[in-house]
């Protein structure tokens, strides 16, 4: 009793020491029960443990299934998979900033704001439930720019061309993109597109209508960067022109307003501004070429 009192006193004295066992972490979650429903705030208290991340906080919240006021509530839903910042599925707004929940450490967050941790779903993607969003547009954008090496076929093409160490070094950072969508969430030029199912509409019809709506919007920094990655790959280059057509189509690279939030928030620290500038240069050359080749 007296021991725990003393330790609480020590941590309170210098104010910034990390909280000790017995402390409570206050969490505020923006919840939403289903698509197109109203969202609402809910408070949760979680006993502090050393080395917690936002995922473990959410696990405690789910296990308790009680709000701060004692009401029994449905567990808060969230997405995660790898827990080591490589799968890109756990993106959410933690204290108002887009980041990966798995690498958002509670000790660091309490340094930012000792009062509470605020969790919100991403604001640029349709909410499925609570903190789970539909990041389908991230992947649709990769389809738009054909972010892959086209090697499908029915016979063996033999080994591909050699890639120099310099090229590898250039490509590697871009290849670490995990489609988390942080760059899109923070981008002031990237605005939300949400398509709801109409009554009597089949899932296929909905999917088609959604893709069409997505294809009108900005492709986003990640897709521009992936187009650069594959246009500089010796085999990926084969469809470089198709990628340039996509990048200069409506919603393409011209929608970027150079805010550089993407590069500031990318958890993989991908040099996105560099990719955008390189794609901009390629688009300049491409547009001039097209002007004279017609």
């Amino acid at each position, binding site marked *: 009793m007296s021991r725990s009192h003393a330790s609480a006193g020590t941590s309170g004295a210098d104010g910034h020491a990390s909280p000790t066992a017995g402390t409570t972490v206050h969490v505020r979650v923006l919840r939403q029960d289903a698509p197109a429903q109203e969202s609402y705030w809910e408070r949760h208290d979680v006993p502090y443990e050393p080395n917690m991340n936002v995922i473990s906080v959410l696990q405690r919240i789910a296990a308790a299934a009680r709000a701060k006021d004692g009401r029994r509530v449905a567990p808060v839903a969230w997405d995660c998979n790898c827990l080591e910042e490589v799968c890109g599925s756990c993106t959410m707004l933690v204290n108002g900033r887009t980041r990966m929940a798995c690498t958002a450490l509670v000790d660091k967050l309490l340094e930012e704001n000792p009062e509470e941790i605020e969790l919100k779903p991403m604001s640029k993607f349709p909410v499925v439930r609570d903190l789970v969003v539909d990041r389908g547009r991230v992947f649709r954008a990769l389809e738009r720019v054909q972010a892959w090496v086209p090697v499908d076929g029915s016979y063996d093409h033999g080994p591909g061309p050699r890639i120099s160490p310099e090229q590898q070094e250039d490509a590697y950072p871009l290849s670490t993109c995990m489609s988390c969508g942080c760059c899109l969430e923070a981008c*002031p*030029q990237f605005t939300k597109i*949400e398509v*709801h199912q109409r009554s009597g509409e089949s899932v296929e019809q909905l999917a088609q209508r959604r893709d069409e709506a997505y294809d009108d919007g900005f492709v986003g920094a990640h897709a521009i960067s992936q187009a650069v990655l594959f246009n500089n790959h010796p085999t990926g280059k084969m469809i470089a022109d198709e990628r340039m057509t996509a990048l200069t189509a409506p919603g393409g690279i*011209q*929608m970027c307003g*150079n805010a550089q939030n993407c590069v500031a928030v990318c958890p993989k620290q991908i040099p996105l*501004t560099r990719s955008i500038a390189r794609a901009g240069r390629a688009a300049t050359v491409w547009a001039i070429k097209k002007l004279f080749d017609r």
Partner: protein
Amino acid sequence: MSQHEPSRSFFYRNQFLIYRLFSLSGLIPVGAFLVVHLLTNASVLGGAGAFQSRVDMIHSLGPLLVPIEWAFIFLPMLFHATVGFVIIAGGLPNVGSYPYVGNIRYTLQRATGMIAFVFIIWHIMHLHWLGTPFGGGKFDPHHATSSAATALQPLGISLLYAIGVLSAVFHFANGLWTLGITWGLWTSPAAMRRASYLSIGVGVLLGAAGLGALGGMRSTNVEQARAIETRMEDVKHMLDGQGGAGNAPAAGTALELPQLKLTPPLP
């Protein structure tokens, strides 16, 4: 949000081309005009005669001046501003959540664009002859310094000009940097760093020129400026009356001729 309607307007179909022309128009001709305009104005620091002879040079275009103004200044600026407002409307500034330098510059780029827009319209009404029917049009090309100084010397007007000019300068200097990304002029971190120096240099130089011109106008003695201008005009008329500079100058003109050089001595 759910009512997203795919629009197939001319603007939508030609988005890439229009945005690139927009970006280009910010540099040429609108940005180039800004540079020439501010440096011309700064010549007032060399005295009323210096500024007057620059203005005379521009006005020697005569009847060509109006079409040139519309083709190379007003219309491109209207185009840039129109597309600029469309871009501003499509964005969702978020400096509150992401207070990074790049994002602050992005937001300032939009804010200064809008300030510059309001300022430029007011500035044209205030000094350009297009504003004459509205009680403006206070600039008299035959009395360049004295008329401009009279119009600009009230403190409130000077302050509004300072805000407008600095907004336009920031917008242009920062726009220069982003333009390099748009067109892919600087793609490596080192090149981007050098581009930052270039943009800051251009911004500081133009800002100094703009504020210098304003300071020059504020410290002008209107009476003296008017005297110099009148004398310069007399010389011009005399030369015209003699049937061009090729003829031998009449007696008396020889004395005045040196004043056609940029800096006439004060009386």
